[in-house]
């Protein structure tokens, strides 16, 4: 864990779920045997993004909503390197929802960790697409007139190859989820929805609320290699209890990179292939 430590001090609020996610990710990387220089960590903009300088690793902290295409481009260029993207529910389900949809649909070989606190924390508590109705929020004093977006229903509609849900308050379980999600990159897009508290602005799905409801579905016998419909039903059923763990996984669908015909049998990465290319054969066709 020391290899990933950093002198920069954390700036998150007391009780913020980001601490748990941050800790679990570092643990997962260490337990998988990845040194900091062997991983690429890409951060969106939001409270979680303020963690970009709170650990080691080759890191990137970009624009709001855009982390998935950046991370995907990075991964395609260096497909042997683990690439993990982090984004909040604001970025992923509003500004960058197109990227989120196409990221899962494309099955890019990356891990995406959703910091899900059901609001825009960093801009002082506005409603996100995942904020519950009837919750007074900054700039929505009467609550939101829109429906709350059913994120898991959307995810399953996109035919994902990996869906997990964790809780920032359960670091040991989250570590294991992250490890599996990172290993899933060889098969494609691993989506990890991490439910986390926002003690300052989220007064509905609080740490206590999540603690009381989250249970480990795998411990209770749920097999992630089940039919998608079964996993979907489990993911959507949050009325009384919230299933966490690896909810769905399939390894028989090739990742985006593995579907690229020009890359078949190529042993090198795009990074290693930068050199001057002779175009004499191409030129002949235009004479």
């Amino acid at each position, binding site marked *: 864990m020391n290899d990933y430590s950093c002198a920069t001090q954390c700036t998150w609020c007391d009780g913020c779920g980001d601490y748990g996610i941050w800790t679990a990710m570092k643990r997962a990387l260490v337990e998988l045997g990845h040194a900091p220089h062997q991983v690429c960590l890409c951060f969106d903009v939001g409270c979680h993004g303020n963690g970009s300088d709170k650990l080691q690793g080759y890191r990137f902290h970009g*624009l709001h909503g855009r982390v998935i295409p950046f991370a995907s481009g990075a991964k395609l*260029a*260096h497909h042997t390197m683990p690439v993990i993207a982090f984004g909040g529910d604001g970025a992923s389900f509003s500004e960058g929802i197109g990227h989120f949809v196409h990221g899962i649909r494309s099955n890019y070989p990356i891990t995406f960790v959703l910091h899900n606190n059901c609001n825009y924390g960093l801009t002082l508590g506005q409603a996100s697409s995942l904020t519950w109705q009837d919750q007074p929020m900054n700039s929505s004093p009467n609550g939101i007139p829109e429906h709350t977006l059913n994120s898991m229903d959307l995810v399953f509609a996109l035919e994902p190859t990996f869906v997990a849900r964790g809780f920032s308050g359960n670091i040991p379980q989250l570590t294991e989820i992250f490890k599996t999600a990172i290993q899933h990159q060889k098969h494609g897009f691993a989506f990890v929805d991490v439910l986390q508290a926002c003690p300052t602005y989220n007064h509905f799905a609080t740490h206590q609320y999540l603690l009381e409801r989250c249970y480990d579905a795998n411990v209770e016998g749920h097999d992630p290699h089940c039919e998608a419909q079964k996993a979907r039903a489990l993911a959507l059923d949050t009325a009384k209890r919230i299933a966490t763990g690896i909810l769905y996984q399939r390894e028989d669908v090739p990742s985006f990179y593995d579907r690229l015909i020009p890359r078949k049998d190529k042993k090198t990465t795009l990074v290693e292939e930068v050199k001057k290319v002779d175009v004499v054969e191409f030129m002949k066709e*235009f004479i």
Partner: protein
Amino acid sequence: MQRVSLKIVGAQGQGVNSVGEICAKGLKRAGYCVFGYREYMSLIKGGHSSYQLDVSHEKIESSETLVNILVTFNHHGLEKNVHDVKNGGIIIHQTPQWSFPADVQKTLAKKKITVLELPTDDILKKLKAKPILGNVLITSVVWSLLGRSADGLKELVREQFGHKGEELVQMNFGAIDAGFTFTAASAKGLSVGLPNPDPQWKNQMLLTGSVAMGLGLIHGGCRFYAGYPMTPSSPLLTFIADQQNRTGMVVKQAEDEITAAQMMSGAMFMGTRAATGTSGGGFDLMTETLSLNGIIENPSVFVLAQRPGPATGLPTWTAQGDLLLAIGSAHGEFARCVLSVSDAQDCFDLMPEAFNLAEEFQTPVIVMTDKHTAEALFTQQQYDQSKSAIRRGNLVTDPKQLKKLKAGDRYDPTANDGISARWLPGSDAVTYCAQGDEHDPAGNVNETAQNATAQMKKRMKKMDALKKALPEPELFGSQTPDTLIIGWGSNKGVILDAIKALTPGPSPKGRGGIGYLHYTYLWPMKTEKLEKLMKKTKRTILVECNHHGQLGMVIKMESGIDIKEKILKYDGRPFFYDELHSLLAV
């Protein structure tokens, strides 16, 4: 310069392009320099489109407004293009029982224009040939009027259709013979005199600016291309995509331009060479990413293919209206480089160069083109590949050097010229953060005033270094001109053709004549050469395809020089040779 031009018009999808392409290839192989220019509308079938070829034994890179031969597939061409023919020219059409209105007939007679009706349907019926062979029939009539032999055309047809079987080849040959028979019978003694051919053109290439750019990208080590369809950047995406199984390149048609720009940026961050391409509207969407690459000092290459705006504007036409966009777009102040292609030579040369500059200065590079360059057909010498080299700047790859690095080296504000060490994710070295927030040398967020000043200065020092490194604009024509034309981008071809005609004979040894100062590197802008030249010129003329005279604005901003005389055009069409010639001759 002796030049001949022909224009083929018809509905989109009728075969206009295929007749144009086969004529172009045949003429080039016969020893002519060919310049092809297409006009079409933003729809798939129907519409009115044209393919014009301007031909000479000398270098030619422009189109004329009037042509020697007009070929029209349908009666719309007879209505719309009848006045596009030169005195003594020929109109070939295939609309039975067509008659022009009396006033048009009078004009045609006065201009001594011959109108030939080709009975395509009857000829094809006799040959028992499918309607598609009408294209070859028309081509052969044009071919015979140009005084070319049937054999040359047959050779081309065999090359194009040989793989489809001998039967089809023979059908084509029949159509060619019928075309020659028609000309011999109906157009006796009529021909368009081409100048004597020059063998230097025979082995040159015929390609569009987009293809030339694509070849330049491949040559320069580009391994990833992401784009979103938008004219006139799409032909580049199409070409690169069509070559992917040969090049092994990853080509991604993204869900939008933001994605394309982000994917390119991510791929560049990891250390490969990647590019994205779009037109104005798409570039607008990419600009936040442009700004991001400025602060994280990420080498990045954007191709900006211009068409007339605002908004959807004239989607399939040309313009130079986005120079200020390229220079001034995206929030905040950061170093960037803007350059522009102008012909098939620099379309190729500037792509590896764009990557080199991006990597050397660790900053975004915007390569501008426009519909005219992107889709025009150029006769182009095969590229000399010995000239180019891959330059990667301060990229640290040596294991020993990597071990010595400190995280703070990445954005070290004391680095020479502001260009700090760059090392790639995956390198066995200390790690850093490519930080989109203002950051300290290691990429940690830092909002102090002192740091913000130091980092801004560091990044902007690169602009000074870049400006020093970039070449001055190039002077063509007279090297001691009385009259100086200033321009950029696709206008180069027509300006050079026009001034050649305006300065007959060898260029004068003494003072005088017309010079053309061509800006390839537009930002940061160098004005020293311009200032020196302007001290001695009597007349300076700005030529641009936009309303503001945007190059003139940038020159004024950078040097204080106000170029008062401007020739500006903003109707979606490029300058035509005769048009510019007469504007300059005043």
